[in-house]
């Protein structure tokens, strides 16, 4: 039972007692190296979940997940519950313009935008996990973690035109994703992040740059997402490079 996941105590704000160091756990037994980190958090940080993005060649991980992203600090979007994220709600929430050129900008690391009274910064990061843990991103930056809306942008460079590929997304909670300016996937409802949860119709990756833009909304609970491209057989597409410019 997770009361938190349905009854957000936003009034209490985000009061996590940092206190002493966090004990990290642990080795994943066998299988692939999914989601295990050693957390050391005497000074709050986005480590070990993220490192700063570099200009080094970056391909998707062995499962095809895209780990290099530009993430905007969370936009305040209070919601007491994730159950409000109906299709119409999130379509409205995600097509609202919060900052200029929201649907076209390819921001730079450190660039700032103004959203109402908030001044928010873009961060070029690489997730150390297959999934991008937005909760840890916000928490590490001492930003609100609940009742928030995140924007994410990345550039997928394809060596040739690839037809009939699909964008496969999992997110916590609801999210919406665009490829080269066109809506690709929408995940409505009180979602938990499951790889390949929602998959786009057949898409074409252009030769060269392709821009993915995503928005994730969350009330209470943790928030994260994972994105990869898969082929007609559902196999991951890894012959790509990922940049943030």
């Amino acid at each position: 039972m997770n009361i938190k996941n349905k009854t957000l105590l936003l009034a209490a704000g985000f009061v996590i007692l940092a206190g002493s160091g966090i004990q990290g756990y642990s080795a994943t037994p066998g299988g692939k190296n999914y989601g295990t980190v050693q957390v050391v958090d005497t000074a709050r940080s986005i480590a070990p979940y993220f490192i700063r993005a570099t200009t080094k060649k970056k391909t998707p991980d062995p499962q095809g997940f895209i780990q290099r992203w530009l993430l905007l600090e969370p936009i305040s979007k209070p919601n007491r519950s994730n159950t409000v994220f109906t299709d119409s709600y999130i379509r409205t929430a995600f097509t609202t313009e919060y900052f200029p050129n929201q649907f076209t900008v390819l921001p730079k690391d450190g660039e700032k935008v103004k959203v109402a009274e908030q001044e928010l910064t873009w961060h070029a990061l690489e997730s150390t996990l297959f999934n991008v843990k937005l909760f840890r991103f916000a928490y590490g930056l001492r930003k609100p973690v609940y009742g928030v809306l995140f924007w994410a942008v990345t550039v997928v460079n394809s060596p040739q035109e690839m037809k009939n590929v699909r964008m496969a997304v999992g997110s916590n909670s609801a999210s919406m994703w665009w490829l080269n300016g066109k809506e690709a996937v929408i995940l409505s409802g009180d979602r938990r992040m499951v790889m390949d949860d929602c998959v786009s119709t057949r898409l074409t990756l252009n030769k060269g740059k392709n821009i993915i833009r995503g928005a994730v909304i969350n009330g209470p609970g943790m928030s994260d997402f994972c994105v990869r491209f898969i082929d007609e057989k559902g196999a991951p597409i890894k012959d790509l490079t990922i940049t943030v410019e």
Partner: protein
Amino acid sequence: MKIRIKIMGATALLTVWLAGTVTAQVGKPFIHDPSTIMECEGKYYTFGTGGGGLISEDGWTWNSGATRPGGGAAPDAIKIGDRYLIAYGATGGGLGGGHNGRILTMWNKTLDPKSPDFKFTEAVVVTSSDGIEDNDAIDPGLLLDPTDGRLWMTYGTYFGFIRLVELDPKTGKRVEGNKALDVAIDCEATTLMYRNGWYYLLGTHGTCCDGANSTYNIVVGRSRKVTGPYVDNMGREMLTGGGKMVLAAGGRVTGPGHFGLMDLGDGVQKMSCHYEADFDQGGRSVLGMRPLLWKNEWPVAGDNFKEGTYEIESERRGYALELVVDFVRMAGGMRGFGRNTDEPVKPVPSQELADVIKTWPTGNIGVRIGDYMFRPHQKWTITAAPDAGGYPGGPYYKIVIAGTDRALAATAEAEVITVPAFTGAPEQLWRIDQLIDGTYRIMPKVVPDSKEKLVLVSIGDSTPTLAKFDMNSDNSKWNFKTH
């Protein structure tokens, strides 16, 4: 054959007692996050969030009364030797806004609060979460590994990882030096079970605690090692959110969560859970019990038996249980070849009870198994017997020929007959359990003058009897078919 069944009235009563829904537990089965059901000294127990729990005399009618100290949330229970180990989360998975969790264990010799032996040991903390890490230490689930006797516990919620730790089965304490392993994400209310070389990790996905709108559902992944990785039917690890559905909303209940295994032996397994909302019980959270089936080595919830009119088909050959009465031929015969195909097509009415019942004896009538021809002597109406109690997961049923009160009954000679009228006698009450392969076991509540537990069996293709159940024989298995 000496018939010792009492015959109460010769006139067939054409009333069919309708129990309404009998798919949920009866009594006051109101609970959230039920622990695995334990049997103790002939009674059944389950504990829930908040400290209390339910007791049942028969596994079907449940009422409050179980007692557990410590409060908190979502306990689990397991019997080890002659003691019961209870694990519970002292916190509430976000209650109060934090994720500082603690899980404790404690022992008791009995679960009966009226017993002089009823005394919990002092609870000990076996794991915790600091409120920041990717884990919230609540929702424990226990497994005593049948292969080596080691005791494992999974725990956690949506706040980070589901983790696995090892406990000492003698003390209930954490094994010294044991480190938690991450085994899943994005689920809660987990537990483990073992079968045929596979370890299964059950988890609950979806939205908790939202009544009729709760999307809670139970999923599973499996591994050859208790330590994982746990993988679903698509090859997705539960560490990436994978999980194969075991049970979701249906009928008039939503939000099944908190899986618990109840292995009754002889191929009968039940799973317990709670439903977030039972629409027929005011939308309250109630205890649920379902048959647990296995398909391709994956567990899946069966459906509780539904009242209705059925062919009772023997798994042995596929013949149907029927009265020993004269077969009444229907008019007509085979239409000749070469006839005009433009002649109008007229439906042939089915044979009705009124067409044949006058040809039947009025006293006891024997039972056999024959070719199913959807005739009145082959159609059985099965309804919950009023005030007859039940057994884990179901009420006792009466089985009568459709449209009559002629009831299937066990005899002292361990045979089956029908009596002209249902009296409620225990030999006329039937327990129906769905087996793990999806077929059914049909068992009289009692066999007169016998203490043996016998079931309906096909001793020949066309001959039923009562005999000991054999899960490895199709003789012991039946299907209920609607046509």
